């Protein structure tokens, strides 16, 4: 028996179809432009290999750094009542909605070698220059990826029933042991989802990276920056690298299918 709510009007179906085409067409266009016979040689080109290496190294480092910063942040947001909590949450979300280039400019204001709030001190005291260095790429990617991880972990921590941690405490598990043996296994699905989303965001970072760390081949040029640069000089290479990035992103979606898109098929 069809209820009124389960009947889908024709104009809604057509609208949905146009939406699907709008999303699918660029991917089809990209696949059509790829010179498949030269794909391997394009992907093993020096500039592409450098870009992939830097991307992989920086995105994994940024994800780990985001985890170190994001886990305590998510914990406090999920489980503590403190003055300014709403402000801290807004601050955490800001890099998500901020134009990435503006994020890069803001990072220059903080860590720029000459005019940054901390950049000069870091350079003269510790001897680390963040701008135009691999560190800069990692910082820029962490800045944009952190909110994804914090949001996933905060949601995960909120959904954990406190009875398990209480039972562990009564059985003698102290804070760190309780976290490692009980909270972390319960948090695992959210942690995996958060790490994958944060890593995918870091991998795709463009605006903040080019503004803060520049676009120097072999040093700060990540895969998205290489695609942009090669589009003029070597379009076939740009398409080859693009299709690889699409494949990686599809892999992330497949990895997250149970959590994010599994429900849609039911």
């Amino acid at each position, binding site marked *: 028996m069809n209820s009124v709510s389960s009947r889908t009007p024709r104009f809604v179906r057509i609208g949905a179809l146009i939406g699907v085409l709008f999303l699918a067409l660029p991917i089809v266009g990209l696949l059509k432009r790829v010179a498949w016979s030269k794909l391997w040689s394009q992907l093993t080109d020096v500039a592409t290999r450098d870009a992939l290496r830097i991307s992989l190294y920086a995105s994994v480092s940024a994800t780990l750094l985001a985890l170190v910063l994001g886990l305590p942040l998510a914990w406090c947001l999920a489980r503590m009542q403190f003055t300014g909590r709403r402000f801290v949450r807004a601050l955490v979300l800001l890099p998500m909605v901020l134009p990435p280039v503006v994020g890069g400019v803001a990072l220059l204001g903080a860590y720029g070698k000459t005019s940054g709030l901390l950049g000069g001190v870091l350079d003269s005291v510790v001897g680390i220059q963040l701008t135009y260095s691999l560190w800069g790429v990692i910082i820029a990617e962490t800045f944009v990826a952190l909110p994804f991880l914090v949001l996933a972990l905060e949601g995960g921590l909120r959904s954990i029933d406190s*009875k*398990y941690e*209480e*039972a*562990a*405490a*009564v*059985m*003698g*598990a*102290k804070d760190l*042991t*309780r976290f490692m*043996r*009980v909270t972390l*296994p*319960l948090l*695992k699905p959210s942690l995996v989802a958060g790490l994958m989303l944060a890593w995918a965001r870091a991998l795709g970072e463009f605006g903040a990276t080019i503004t803060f760390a520049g676009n120097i081949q072999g040093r700060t040029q990540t895969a998205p920056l290489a695609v942009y640069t090669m589009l003029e000089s070597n379009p076939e290479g740009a398409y080859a690298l693009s299709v690889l990035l699409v494949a990686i992103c599809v892999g992330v979606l497949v990895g997250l299918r149970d959590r994010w898109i599994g429900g849609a098929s039911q």
Partner: protein
Amino acid sequence: MISLHGTVAVGAFSRHFSLEFGNEIVGVFGANGIGKTSLLRTIAGLCPLGEGELKVNGVIVDAPAKKQFVRPELRNIGMVFQDHSLFPFMTALDNAAFPLTMRGMKRNIARKLAMETLEQFGVANVAEQLAPTLSGGQSQRVAIVRALIGSPQAVLLDEPLSAIDDESRESVRNQIREHLNRLGVSAIVVSHDRTDFDHLCTRIENYTR
């Protein structure tokens, strides 16, 4: 020994208790809402005492006026939770061995001891099953093993037989009594079933609203 003279306060609930339990099995009986579970949670350290003083084996573990509060992980109390609260990502055996590993025992020795106790409670056959796959009765027996196994200095049992079927009830009661007698500590049993008290407890405290 448990000595509590003070107010148990959880959320809007508040009730004054004045009790002295020796090394005996005391049944706490009373209607819903008189604070039986809150009393156990307070003794375990999961809810702080509103006012007054709580001692376990002569040591003050909670006294708000003196700003003394011993955290639950340092009280060494065994507890069966009303909903069992077995860790869902662990097997029955690892759940049962958990308190032993928290006391620094090596995992394989802890698992061996836990296996022996699971056997005594008739659930050794499900030892390697994940907690969510256990039946209500199996899960409750594992929870009982987990509460008794770590040589606790007091044992709190919140409706410990509610999910056990009638045929096995007596043998589980006997096992609990045997273990508690061997431990020789204060034990508090909360139940709705008077026959559990008659067979298990040495004394009954009846609370009314």
